[in-house]
């Protein structure tokens, strides 16, 4: 709780800093705040205490996710101090909004009441609507933010409908009540199934599962890169945490399982296949994020037909997967920004050309992170995928897993195509300016990915 308050207050504080335009202080202050929050989380680790009349509960699971999100946000802020260096006004708002959105994320990882689920999603989303439109003059940015807003509210409506139906069944928003009710009725009636289904729809939208993924590529492309990072990392972590909490409490009845399978298959297929032909880096990363959602859904799927307690393994897998994925994504997007500047604004995959010639170390970092996304051994991405496969096979989803394996191969293809660019030496050498801070952040991400790949036990 204290952490929530801290971050919220921090947001307000940052706004005030902006008021007295202390631009240079923004990043340090926010990061300090985040560190404080982390400290609070860690101090409260393993102490399950309920808040807000039991509507929020911090467990090991949620705290793990929270710390992960905080770390990623901190990394983003480190990058931000350089990213916003050129921008004069309204920088503070960006930080503040991200902090607010982060609070939403915290709530999503730890809600026990569907009311909080709704609130969390909104707190997470609304700032993002604004952030996506951060570049006021850029039509693309406007369009991105508008599409995000429209589709977002549309899905929110479904979510609410679902929550309402479930409320109608149980007479309470509390998840335990729902669990109890489902345990009593067994497979459950139509209203229950519809209710579950609508809620899942709302969550599937947040994590960008097909067919609710349409916003992902457009918004990723249109939004400012920094916001894209935030969306593809923190939002994904929060989204899957929320998704898992909900799925796990329901125990996933067959009706729901059928839908989840379809979502998984569709997401795996569409995400990977479309990504094959993407030449625009941000869109590529968008589709790859959809693809990764597919793998994560596969992990969620294994909750079906399992007694409670098996959930922990899934939760841990999700946490490991999303966190390592976020690390790699953050680093790559930062490199992307660097390359974009070097190629005066181009955003295609080939802007990475000459990176190896100019900055070998960064190229190797890029290699590590790409291979991690592709799931090549000794990187965290590999361990993550392997865990998912283990779960899926263990739960007996052999055929779905085989499809996943095949899709992983496609994934390797489109990442390798970019890796190939990284190591191409163009005719006239390209000059990459890298601020030391970015260099550090990228290195941290790359090394982190490798270290977590060798010692998966660390997370």
């Amino acid at each position, binding site marked *: 709780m204290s952490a929530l308050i801290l971050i919220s207050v921090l947001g307000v504080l940052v706004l005030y800093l902006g008021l007295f335009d202390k631009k240079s202080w923004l990043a340090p202050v926010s990061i300090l705040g985040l560190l404080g929050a982390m400290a609070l989380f860690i101090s409260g680790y393993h102490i399950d205490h309920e808040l807000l009349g039991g509507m929020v509960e911090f467990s090991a699971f949620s705290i793990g996710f929270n710390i992960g999100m905080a770390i990623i946000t901190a990394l983003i802020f480190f990058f931000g101090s350089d990213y916003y260096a050129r921008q004069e006004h309204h920088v503070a708002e960006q930080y503040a909004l991200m902090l607010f959105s982060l609070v939403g994320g915290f709530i999503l990882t730890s809600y026990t009441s569907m009311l909080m689920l709704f609130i969390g999603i909104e707190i997470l989303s609304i700032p993002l609507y604004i952030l996506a439109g951060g570049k006021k003059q850029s039509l693309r940015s406007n369009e991105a933010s508008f599409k995000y807003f429209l589709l977002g509210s549309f899905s929110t409506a479904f979510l609410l409908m679902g929550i309402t139906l479930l409320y109608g069944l149980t007479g309470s928003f509390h998840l335990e009540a729902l669990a109890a009710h489902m345990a009593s009725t067994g497979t459950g009636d139509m209203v229950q199934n519809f209710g579950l289904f609508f809620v899942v729809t709302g969550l599937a939208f947040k994590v960008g599962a097909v067919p609710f993924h349409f916003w992902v590529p457009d918004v990723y492309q249109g939004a400012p890169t920094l916001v894209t990072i935030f969306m593809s990392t923190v939002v994904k972590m929060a989204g899957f945490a929320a998704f898992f909490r909900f799925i796990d409490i329901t125990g996933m009845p067959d009706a729901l399982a059928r839908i989840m399978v379809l979502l998984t298959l569709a997401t795996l297929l569409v995400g990977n296949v479309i990504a094959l032909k993407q030449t625009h880096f941000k869109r590529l990363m968008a589709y790859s994020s959809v693809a990764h959602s597919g793998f994560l859904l596969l992990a969620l799927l294994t909750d079906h037909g399992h007694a409670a307690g098996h959930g922990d393994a899934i939760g841990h897998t999700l946490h490991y997967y999303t966190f390592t994925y976020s690390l790699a994504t953050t680093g790559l997007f930062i490199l992307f920004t660097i390359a974009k500047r070097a190629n005066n604004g181009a955003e295609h995959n080939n802007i990475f050309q000459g990176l190896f010639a100019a900055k070998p170390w960064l190229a190797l970092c890029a290699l590590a992170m790409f*291979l991690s996304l592709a799931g090549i051994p000794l990187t965290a991405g590999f*361990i993550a995928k392997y865990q998912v*496969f*283990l779960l899926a*096979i263990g739960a007996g989803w052999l055929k779905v897993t*085989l499809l996943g394996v095949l899709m992983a191969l496609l994934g390797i293809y489109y990442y*390798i195509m970019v890796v*190939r660019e990284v190591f191409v030496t163009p005719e006239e050498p390209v000059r990459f300016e890298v601020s030391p801070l970015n260099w550090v952040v990228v290195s941290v991400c790359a090394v982190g990915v490798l270290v977590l790949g060798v010692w998966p036990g660390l997370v």
Partner: protein
Amino acid sequence: MELLALILIPLLAGAVLLFARPEKAARGIALVSTLLSLALVLWLWYTWTGTAVTGISHDWVPAWGMRFVLGYGGIGLLMLILTGVLFPFIIGTGYKQPVGDPSLVNAMLLFTQAALFGVFLAQNAFLFYIFFELSLVPIFFLLMFWGGEHKRAITVRFFLYTLLGGLALLFSIAYVTLQTPAPHSADFAALAALHLPMSTQVWLFWTMFLAFAIKMPIFPFHSWQPETYTMAPTQGTMVLSAVMGKMGLYGIIVFLFAIVPEGAQHWSSVVIGLSLFGALYAGVIAFRQNDLKRMIAYSSMSHLGLMCAALFTWNTYGISGTLYQMLAHGVLMICLFYIVGAVSQRTGSTDFSSMGGLKTRMPRFALLFMFVTANAIALPLTQSFVGEWLIYNGLWQWDNWTAFAGVVLIVLGAIYMLYAYQRVMLGPDREIAVTDADDEEHFFLVPLIAITLVLGVFPNVILHLVDGPVQQLLNSFTSLP
């Protein structure tokens, strides 16, 4: 500990080359490192007592049966010897036939060697897989940077094709690991202990075999091989054909025979059919190739097909023959591709049309080539003969007509090898300005030829190494429920 050193030596040396970039000393460093590894391998061989050795056994992620276990049995030791002996030559190739930045090339080669040592030392399926895949990454860059025409497309195709197999293998490993009693373990020992039901083995066999069939490659999965071998830089082709192809055969022994023996027996006739057909198919194709390198690529495919077929004959002679042939084939491929490199370096292309009548101007080279050719067509008292003789015995004991199909290869081999030799060396002098083999090339080829002949006359040195393990393997078959 020395097992860990075996992996670390090339790894560190490679890292040094990669980051220090010593242009001049690069090859020297690489050579020294490979020679060190060789010395270490020979020492292991010298101290080999005939019992399997487990050097390091360390928990990694117990939950998923990931353990860091290094060790070797007779067969593993043979593979270590193969890798240890061949890599100095692969590095040495760079002296006379340099490609690109020496420090980078050699770094890649050393990383590959480290990964290969890992593959042959790993006693845990998961560890095996990790090294199995890692060995691809440096090769990928080797081909990407210093390949021939269409290198970008072909490399990616090769990479994906092999990874397809790899992922299928990963799937199988995950599956079998979960079959072990909790706490799960992916150690080969544990996996070999579980007797999966026949229904499972029947399909699991293919998900595992795919990986190795592509690696070797075996007939329907071979389409990446000729173009990759042709395009790759000489050293890359050497690594692929001489050592990496053998990973497939080794994998068959440690995975299929240990984990899904009934499945392997169930499918053995199919596999033998495919392999032999592929062998004959490639042998026929090799005859009319217009590119020396591609022709050798097909010949290699033909040899590997024969080996794979013999492996599945389930008898002493087939398996020991294959194991022996692995070494012989490795040496042979190094020789052949070195010769290709040397000739094309002089004539400027690997195409036969640019060669012919070279013997007049390079008689000493022609002699060396003739020795290698003799090995390639498995004349007695060369290494290959011993292997093929055992292989044919194995095939005969499996089935007479299969043996006949296999033995036809000695004719096909003679046809394409001698034709190739003629098209390169013989015929009227075409006034191509070429120099004869210099001392450096002799220094490279003569030792290899010496190995060929010595092991052709005294094959028991190696055969004794594998005899025991092969017997154990066969006993485990016979003791199947």
